[in-house]
């Protein structure tokens, strides 16, 4: 994917007579757009075929929003990244959708969802935000701003999780959605641990 993005950026920059720095910006943006579109389309298709569309949307958006401020582990290549993202989000969504087939799943979910969420909050409080050698976090103001953003996101997720758990009394599917929010938050926070250990 990087090669395609590079060629596209070269074409745009050559036609518009941009310098190297502007070409790098176009390339960076183009990569982000393509990555988001491809991942979203594949995940939505997986969601439609496995009847877990709502879970897929929740996992995809919640991981993405949280990752924007916390950072996390990174794959070595862009294609590896694409494959890992799709597999991880799909797997978490399918597990969240079908775990209710297990016996005592309601009680398990009511205990695990808040537990997962609290573990995530602790990890994020301790580690976020995590930088990368290609995108170092040097500025104290930036670190402070990203930590604040992470906590605001967590507060919104906590309210959403509570609402879904209350809603599950009347609407069984809300339990799956609450569980998907819990597992996706935990998964994203665990990528911070991996990133820090690297």
């Amino acid at each position, binding site marked *: 994917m*990087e090669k395609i993005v590079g060629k596209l*950026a070269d*074409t*745009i920059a050559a*036609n*518009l007579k*941009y310098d190297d*720095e*502007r070409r*790098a*910006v*176009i*390339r*960076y*943006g*183009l*990569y*982000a*757009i393509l*990555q*988001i579109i491809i*991942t979203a389309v594949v995940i939505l298709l997986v969601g439609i075929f496995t009847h877990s569309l709502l879970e897929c949307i929740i996992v995809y958006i919640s991981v*993405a929003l949280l*990752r*924007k*401020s*916390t*950072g*996390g*582990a*990174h*794959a*070595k*290549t*862009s294609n*590896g*990244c*694409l494959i*890992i*993202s799709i597999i991880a989000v799909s797997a978490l969504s399918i597990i969240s959708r079908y775990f209710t087939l297990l016996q005592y799943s309601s009680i398990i979910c009511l205990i695990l969802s808040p537990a997962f969420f609290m573990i995530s909050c602790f990890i994020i409080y301790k580690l976020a*935000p*995590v*930088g*990368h050698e*290609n*995108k170092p*976090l*040097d*500025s104290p103001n*930036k670190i402070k701003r*990203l930590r604040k*953003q992470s906590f605001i996101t967590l507060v919104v997720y906590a309210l959403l999780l509570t609402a879904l758990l209350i809603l599950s009394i009347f609407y069984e599917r809300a339990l799956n959605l609450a569980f998907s929010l819990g597992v996706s938050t935990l998964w994203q926070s665990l990528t911070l641990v991996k990133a820090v250990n690297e």
Partner: protein
Amino acid sequence: MKKYLKPFLAVTAMVCSFVATTMASSACLLWYYQPEEPKSLQDR
């Protein structure tokens, strides 16, 4: 067709610059792979 190519590329460049700036203002890209951040976008 060629008449519209340049405006189309200019719009694409604007959209890409906007997305790149948005991405650079957060900690990471959405997913795993982290491409090198352009110098002009660092520390925003």
